């Protein structure tokens, strides 16, 4: 049963549902699912960083914003074609991610979280400061992409949805390929036991900074998608709380899983909506409460639940992905607290499990 | 009625059962040894008595059922535990470590006089009173752990592998102190040890465990002379 659900058949089902979705729901809902697709891409990128290379980031709202602004400025002010801005945003964000990844090599857990949080807090301020380019607080409008002639039977919202889907699908495939390939295995080795990985010849610096770059590129692409979809960017949309949401989405979906990004994205898009339905002024209260409750009930995320329900799968897969349940250290770095022996034990016992 | 009575104890970690229904007792004022190879379940047994593992079965202290109670309650009843690996607080001073031993003491009584007693038994601890416990040698930390247990003024002292990692000279010194404690205080002690020879000279009675069951029991002398025991643990 497990093999069916998490293998190609499971993905096939998701794909079919995704394609049929816009024809069976209201225009408003389609818009929401379109946004969920944007979030899925950035959450996927963050999961690659967190779940697979073991580095935490509370700064992805900045990369997301960077991608969004690249697209908004290029399209809105310079008249670039929309899709052309995607690779540009990806490259710029990859570079930014690489630059962040370099000092991040020296930081772990809590400290990395703080530095990236700092970036998330600073970025909107930078947007405001450089308002000759960004139009600062008043925001920047950008046109939404229009369907080509052969697709103009689609409603505008449906076209945007499929456009985002068309961008998201290769991003997911790329992620799957990365994770299964050499880079992915190196990252997993680093995540699980850096020192052992190093002694096996894995180049730590290269892989960890690459992971940051890739993850940031994903966030940038997602940001571009966001700019297409909403057609307007402003510093307020990219506050540091967005980073909190991305991180929550990763954990809610399931750390170190690819499919988890989908569930995480759906969570952060729709839970606030349903919360607002209950009582608009209580939105944040309910949202926060749901996040907390989720951590009690499903700490290994939706994918954790699916795996448990579906039963054990192939041993090989278990090794890479369930092992991700041992998430990176976000608390005290080893040694600053007498918990150090426990941390060492953690990695040791993990080694035993993956044999 | 024995002071410590354990009856048909079953315990484990998760799905794995480690203790398959063991029973034993310790008379008041006695020193009883628990021997056995690694993995036999000795530490688990101690943890059951101390409440850190919740077993099925019966554990009674002075007639009172303590099975399933929380560790802090059991400690307050006068059970002190000298854990494997000492369990001292390396960042705290020797003095602070000792004071912590008295945390659960009911009457609040005179800490200073108990500390005097500990320093009398272990003069080196007094020399190092304000030092951080982490800077002490292995032997000194073991003495600190025992001293800390004594600070509780316990009715029962559990010791888990006190000689582990200690040089022979230091081990003898430590057992000498334990002997003094036994003779001068009449403290009931339950000692888990790998060093069968040393502990059998010191204990009144012994139980030998083997994969979760009690394989052999009796007074120290007969256990020591038991041929199977000798072959299995002493090698001759």
């Amino acid at each position, binding site marked *: 049963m497990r093999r069916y659900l998490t293998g190609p058949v499971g993905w096939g089902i998701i794909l079919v549902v995704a394609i049929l979705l816009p024809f069976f729901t209201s225009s408003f809902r389609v818009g929401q699912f379109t946004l969920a697709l944007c979030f899925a891409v950035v959450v996927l990128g963050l999961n690659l960083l967190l779940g697979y290379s073991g580095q935490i980031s509370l700064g992805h709202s900045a990369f997301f914003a960077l991608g969004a602004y690249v697209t908004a400025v290029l399209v809105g002010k310079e008249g670039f074609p929309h899709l052309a801005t995607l690779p540009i945003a990806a490259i710029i964000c990859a570079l930014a991610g690489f630059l962040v990844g370099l000092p991040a090599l020296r930081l772990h857990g809590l400290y990395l979280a703080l*530095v990236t949080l700092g970036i998330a*807090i600073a970025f909107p301020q930078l947007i405001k400061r450089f308002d000759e380019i960004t139009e600062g607080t008043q925001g920047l409008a950008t046109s939404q992409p229009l369907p080509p002639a052969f697709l103009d039977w689609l409603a505008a919202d449906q076209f945007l949805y499929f456009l985002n889907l068309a961008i998201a699908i290769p991003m997911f495939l790329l992620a799957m390929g990365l994770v299964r390939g050499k880079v992915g295995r190196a990252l997993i080795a680093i995540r699980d036991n850096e020192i052992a990985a190093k002694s096996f010849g894995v180049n730590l610096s290269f892989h960890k900074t690459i992971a940051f770059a890739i993850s940031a590129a994903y966030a940038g692409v997602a940001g571009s998608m966001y700019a297409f979809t909403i057609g307007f960017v402003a510093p307020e949309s990219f506050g540091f709380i967005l980073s909190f949401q991305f991180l929550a989405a990763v954990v809610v979906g399931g750390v170190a899983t690819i499919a988890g990004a989908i569930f995480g994205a759906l969570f952060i898009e729709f839970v606030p909506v349903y919360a607002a339905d209950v009582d608009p002024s209580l939105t944040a209260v309910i949202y926060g409460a749901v996040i907390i409750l989720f951590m009690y009930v499903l700490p290994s995320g939706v994918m954790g639940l699916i795996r448990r329900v579906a039963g054990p799968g192939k041993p090989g897969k278990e090794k890479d992905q369930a092992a991700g349940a041992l998430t990176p250290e*976000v608390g005290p770095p080893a*040694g600053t607290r007498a918990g*150090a022996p426990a941390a060492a034990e953690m990695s040791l016992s993990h080694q035993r499990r993956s044999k | 009625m024995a002071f410590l009575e354990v009856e048909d104890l079953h315990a484990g970690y998760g799905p794995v059962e480690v203790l398959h229904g063991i029973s034993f007792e310790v008379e008041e004022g006695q020193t009883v040894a628990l021997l056995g190879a690694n993995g036999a379940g000795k530490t688990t047994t101690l943890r059951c008595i101390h409440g850190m593992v919740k077993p099925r079965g019966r554990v009674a202290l002075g007639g009172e059922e303590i099975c399933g109670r929380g560790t802090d309650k059991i400690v307050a009843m006068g059970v002190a535990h000298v854990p494997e690996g000492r369990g001292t607080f390396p960042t705290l001073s020797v003095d602070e470590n000792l004071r*912590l031993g008295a945390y659960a003491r009911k009457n609040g009584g005179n800490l200073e006089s108990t500390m005097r007693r500990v320093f009398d038994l272990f003069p080196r601890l007094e020399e190092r009173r304000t030092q951080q416990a982490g800077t002490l040698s292995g032997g000194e930390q073991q003495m600190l752990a025992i001293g*800390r247990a004594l600070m509780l003024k316990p009715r029962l002292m559990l010791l888990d592998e006190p000689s582990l990692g200690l040089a022979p000279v230091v081990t003898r010194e430590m057992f000498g102190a334990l002997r003094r404690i036994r003779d001068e205080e009449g403290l009931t002690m339950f000692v888990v040890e790998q060093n069968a020879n040393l502990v059998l000279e010191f204990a009144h009675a012994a139980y030998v465990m083997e994969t979760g069951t009690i394989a052999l029991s009796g007074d120290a002398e007969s256990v020591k002379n038991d041929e199977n025991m000798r072959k299995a643990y002493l090698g001759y």
Partner: protein
Amino acid sequence: MERFLETIIDGIAVGSIYGALALALVLIYRSTGIVNFAQGEMAMFATFIAWALTEAGIPIGLAVLITIAFALVAGMIIERVLIRPVEGGQELTLVVVTLGLFIFINGMATWIWGPQNRGFPRLLPNDRISVLGLDTTWEAVLLVVVLLGVAGVLFLIFNKTKIGLAMRAAAANPDASRIVGVPVGRMLMLGWGLAAAVGAIAGVLIAPRLFLDVNLMGAVMIYAFASATLGGFDSAFGAIVGGWIIGIAEAIAGGYIDFIGQDLKILVPLIIILTVLLVRPQGLFGSPAVARV
């Protein structure tokens, strides 16, 4: 020159608030081993409670005392109810819980009191006074005195009382603490309660300077994080010194370096965090991390 020194005094005064919040962070870090990202929101909520009490006619001094008591209890309840269930698990889970708590408390405050900002009564008159020939305010003196007082009380609790010793033990080594019968859970609860109380004090002190609104603590927290990082996350003394240094740096940068101005002032603590973590990760007074080999 005088103006420079006065800027420094002002920096120390504000820095005392950062230091107080940093103390709260360090308290929780040392006891639970995580950073409580919701610390600022808890302080903000407590400050609103104080404001509501004064609006109801209660004199400010009494309101503050009631608020501190409230924060103490609330912090303990939060640990017991929200944090305890996930304490033994993954650290990442704990972090997400504090992030969720951030959103929850922020939302709760908005729901109860609305998003608009308000003035908060000053605890001391705003008269300018002269200290050592330099012009400053009663308030600045109060801030420094309160911080030192709080630090002093905490020092006494932790180093001279039985329960303080037990708390330190529970934080340093929970397993060994259980063995001697220390109720570790209860100690953690107390740690959270104290941290929340300290946060409330900080909130009440900073509110008169800024407007009281639900985002009061958002920016302040990053300064507090910078202070704790600079001082060393496991050092209470470092938190205070770090707070002062950050306060002074902010005051000088804001006042003397034009490029930074008000918008980018927030970069100052961020750059400090980054530099400290790259150059000396354990901060000025923290204990060095040991690589697990």
